[in-house]
């Protein structure tokens, strides 16, 4: 079933029209490049606006107004910030491991952008629909931590090193919970391919289909996902009041911006995975807009933003955990609960107790 390859197909056929016979391979690569550029453009800007959203939301939680000087309602604020960061000098420590130090930000940003490829924004708008979609997402999202580790280690700063080590510990632990909670949902869908997971949800979103265990899985996923993105209350990697800026202490200019942008894109990714797996991706509630397929993108982004808002709400309310409590939470609470939940879900699927519309 290859229904959702049509955006790639459209561009491929378009390119094929320009090219003479026998250049299918070129068209194939050309289509990939064009799609990559489109995604890069969209999500670089989307990332910037997520930063703006975060700042605005933070301001509203904190009785402030937020950025409102650059552009109408502050809409160009982050653009201006990005421009500033581009124009800034790139400084670094003298004794840094230069190669790894420069490599680290690209690791983080590239792995963040790669994950975007598999999301089904609408039925057609999916760049890359592989049959191991969820596995791919989990694999990609754990590559980012290598960049953080590299950055923290190579910048030859003790604060950065502590931050990086914390990040390693944290991501390795919470990877488990993210995986297991998604695995719980895979029990219902029976497939790892994202487009088919959406297909299954035409009978009701998975959080409804799976009811109690699905809700538990969702909560665990959100907690672990917040930890994966190193955001408060799990921001030990940066931990402003403890480590200054953590792993990116020694980064400046655009290299810092890559880390910063990657954090927000990762947040979007975590929310997008939750949207796809738990909330029916581009499906509208009760199928009210099924007749207009292009509205799916709006539904998808809308649901994602609600989850992103939830993560922001966490961030601006909760204090930070300590490193040992972070591990306690994972290994003593989330992991056993998750395993229990997996068994529960298996039982429910086996006894066909899922709610189907």
């Amino acid at each position, binding site marked *: 079933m290859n229904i959702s390859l049509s955006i790639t197909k459209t561009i491929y056929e378009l390119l094929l029209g320009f090219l003479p016979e026998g250049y299918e391979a070129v068209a194939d690569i050309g289509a990939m490049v064009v799609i990559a550029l489109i995604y890069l453009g969209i999500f670089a800007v989307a990332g910037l606006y997520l930063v703006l959203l975060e700042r605005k939301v933070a301001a*509203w939680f904190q*009785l*402030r107004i937020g950025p409102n000087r650059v552009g109408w309602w502050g809409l160009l604020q982050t653009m201006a910030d990005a421009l500033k960061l581009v124009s800034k000098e790139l400084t670094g420590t003298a004794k840094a491991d230069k190669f790894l130090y420069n490599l680290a930000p690209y690791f983080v940003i590239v792995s963040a952008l790669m994950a975007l490829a598999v999301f089904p924004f609408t039925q057609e708008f999916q760049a890359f629909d592989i049959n191991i979609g969820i596995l791919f997402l989990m694999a990609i999202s754990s590559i980012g931590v290598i960049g953080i580790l590299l950055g923290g280690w190579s910048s030859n700063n003790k604060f950065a090193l502590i931050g990086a080590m914390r990040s390693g510990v944290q991501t390795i632990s919470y990877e488990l919970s993210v995986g297991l909670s998604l695995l719980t949902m895979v029990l219902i869908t029976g497939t790892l391919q994202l487009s088919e997971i959406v297909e299954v949800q035409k009978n009701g979103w998975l959080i409804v289909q799976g009811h109690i265990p699905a809700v538990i899985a969702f909560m665990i996923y959100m907690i672990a996902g917040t930890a994966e993105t190193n955001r408060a209350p799990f921001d030990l990697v940066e931990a402003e009041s403890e480590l200054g800026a953590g792993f990116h202490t020694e980064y400046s200019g655009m290299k810092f911006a890559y880390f910063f942008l990657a954090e927000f894109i990762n947040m979007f990714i975590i929310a997008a995975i939750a949207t796809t797996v738990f909330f029916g991706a581009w499906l509208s509630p009760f199928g009210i807009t099924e007749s207009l397929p292009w509205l799916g993108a709006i539904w998808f982004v809308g649901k994602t933003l609600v989850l992103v808002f939830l993560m922001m709400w966490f961030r601006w*309310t909760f204090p930070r955990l300590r490193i040992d409590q972070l591990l306690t939470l994972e290994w003593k609470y989330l992991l056993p609960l998750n395993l229990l939940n997996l068994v529960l879900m298996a039982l429910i699927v086996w006894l066909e107790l899922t709610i189907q519309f």
Partner: protein
Amino acid sequence: MSYFGNIAKGIKTLLTGMSVTGKYFLHSRKGAITQQYPDNRETLKMFDRFRGEVVMPHDENNEHTCTGCQKCEIACPNGTIEIIWDRQVDPETGKKKKMIDQHIYHLGMCTMCGLCIEACPTDAILWAQNFENSVYDRSYLTKVLNKPGSKVKAGIED
């Protein structure tokens, strides 16, 4: 089952915290406490006791009430005030009298403690409510409080 009890209790406290911030989020439109400073200059009024900087009021005849007694200069802990004075012949009485030449006020050294104004027996110096004291050069912070050509009001003795 204290294990699950603890989880439930923990989640409840987290939700309580979120309800507090959530409430402010919903009321953020009118609840914002930000003062958009340069924009609200017209409405921003300091309290009348606000200590902005020391000024010497002059009346319409360009007369002040400073007799040059130097009490403010002595009271000041930081050497903010310097008074340059000499004895001149008072044109009305014909006697020699202490008169100020320049009442110099170094705003850059002032800690706004208010001791000079308390010390002044003739209320010649007062607090102004101006708070926008930033300048591009430190030397602008040294001010001469008495206006050029001003003289002390008749009948003011220390």
